[in-house]
């Protein structure tokens, strides 16, 4: 059992190294640039916070609400690492249509193969994103890490993990174009498009009242971070607290990832 697990980890790691080998330096550069960008945006704002806090009260008083700058750097990191995730998913789609024949002719299980892609598409970009936010701050001064408000970062990560999990499914179409389309659609359009639709529903059918809370709840669960940033001033309108909604997001993510792996193990054929 333990030996099996070891073998699993060993082979999944080998495969992951192999598929990432070609682009790993690119991803490292991207992560580094993202970190620099974040440092440039976030650190001055934290310093600013500390200065104002020290002028208006005791030096280590309660942590202040996040500054808008954190939001900007989060959004940037989100866009950058979503692109990374989409591009890895696109290479998976390309591989499924071609070199998967080579990989799956080796002593590599379909589970190992699909899990290593899952790690590369979902967890690697999420991890890099988190690091790009925290590393520059802690490099500047580790104590500052505690000054960052964690909730928006957490919500962003949770939302992105769900979105990236969808990219794994998209890759199963074996078409790069489909992955690219779904990627752009999920990152740039869907969060806002569905809001517009919600708005239209409430305007056309409900005479301007709030949309049904069920729809709103679904929206919140799928986009906890987008919700909390867009509804910043009017949390009262929300049917769920974003932190509560994020539990649903996590559950759906786990389900999406498990079902992707199961589908792959049971159904994926190298044609």
């Amino acid at each position, binding site marked *: 059992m333990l030996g099996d697990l070891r073998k699993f980890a060993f082979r999944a790691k*080998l495969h992951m190294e*192999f598929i990432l080998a070609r682009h790993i330096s690119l991803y490292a550069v991207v992560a580094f640039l993202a970190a620099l960008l974040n440092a440039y945006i976030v650190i001055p704002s934290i310093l600013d916070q500390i200065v104002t806090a020290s002028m208006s009260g005791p030096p280590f008083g309660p942590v202040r609400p996040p500054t808008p700058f954190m939001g900007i750097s989060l959004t940037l990191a989100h866009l950058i690492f979503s692109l990374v995730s989409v591009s890895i998913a696109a290479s998976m789609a390309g591989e499924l249509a071609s*070199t998967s*024949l*080579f990989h*799956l*002719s080796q002593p*590599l299980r379909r589970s190992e193969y699909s899990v290593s892609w899952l790690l590369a598409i979902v967890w690697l970009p999420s991890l890099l994103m988190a690091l790009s936010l925290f590393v520059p701050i802690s490099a500047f001064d580790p104590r500052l890490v505690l000054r960052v408000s964690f909730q928006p970062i957490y919500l962003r990560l949770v939302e992105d993990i769900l979105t990236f999990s969808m990219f794994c499914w998209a890759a199963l179409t074996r078409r790069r174009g489909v992955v690219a389309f779904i990627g752009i659609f999920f990152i740039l359009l869907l969060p806002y498009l569905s809001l517009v639709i919600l708005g239209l529903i409430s305007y056309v059918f409900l005479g301007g009242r709030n949309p049904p809370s069920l729809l709103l709840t679904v929206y919140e669960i799928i986009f906890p971070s987008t919700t909390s940033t867009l509804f910043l001033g009017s949390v009262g309108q929300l049917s769920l607290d974003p932190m509560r909604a994020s539990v649903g997001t996590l559950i759906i993510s786990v389900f999406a990832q498990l079902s992707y792996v199961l589908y792959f193990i049971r159904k994926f054929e*190298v044609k």
Partner: protein
Amino acid sequence: MQNSPLMSLRRKRTSEDGEIIFYRKGHSIEKLAVIVSRNLRKRFGRIQALRGVTFSVSKGSATALLGPNGAGKTTTLKILLGLLKPDSGEVEVFGMDPWRKGDKIRGIVGVLHEKPVYPQWASVRQLIRYAARLRGLGEMDEERAIKLSGLERYAGARISSLSRGYLQRLGIALAILGDPELLLLDEPTANLDPAARMEILNLISVLKEELDVTVLISSHIIPELEMVCDSAIFINEGLVLDQGSLDELARKHNSRAVVVIRTRNPRKLASDLIGRDYVKSVEVSSESVKVEVMPGELPTLESEISRLGGKYGIERVESAAGRLQDLYWKVIGVAR
């Protein structure tokens, strides 16, 4: 082949887990069958590729998988590797179900695909190293595979830069990595120049003779198959028409075997041979004798020739041309 790296080969007799890997069937014919397939069916959309494929491959044999284009050969091989899931039927390779235990099977089975696709960006050595590490093999094994397949000069080359023939050699290097127990070869000599063809065929023979590797080869080049194979499976439109050892099949289908013997004494040899009851006809020319033997009696003639070799100054025996070819037309031709 005297100083070939093959000399250093030692077989791993058990799989990693130490379990017994050869499968014993109840039937007497299927003694130590490495592959057993019963009633395999596979459909791709509207095409029924396999409609009940039943065959077995016994340990240590070299079996030709023969059939016209679209017969289902590649599909069958992919099912044996666990790359495709059969719609119904049973299949066991080393006693394991390929779809569920594919990784174990692929650890001891070397494969060369009909249309292999490799990551273009990698170098030959990178790719072989990756495949070797997945099998828990080291650098020695990598080097040996590179050497045996004649890839030394291209070990550092990018795969995208390889010619088709060298791509084929890369496929062979990957297939023989780490002493496989079974080789599944889908058109192994495609794209090779004549010298490379012979090299690869020799390699297959040596692997079979010295290391007792079981080989299943799909190909359309019948004379080549005849050189290395001792059994055949005929498949057409997703059905196995017949299978067995070449001798058995030749007897069954009354198929003729012709051998051309180059000798310094053609007349004497001919008059000696014509009296044997297994010889059907003899044709004499200035330096050779063409002998047609009764179906299934080729081995008898072969042992006779080696006995008479010195006596009649026999220089060379040319292939038993046409036996498999003849069988092919008899078995597949009837079906068509």
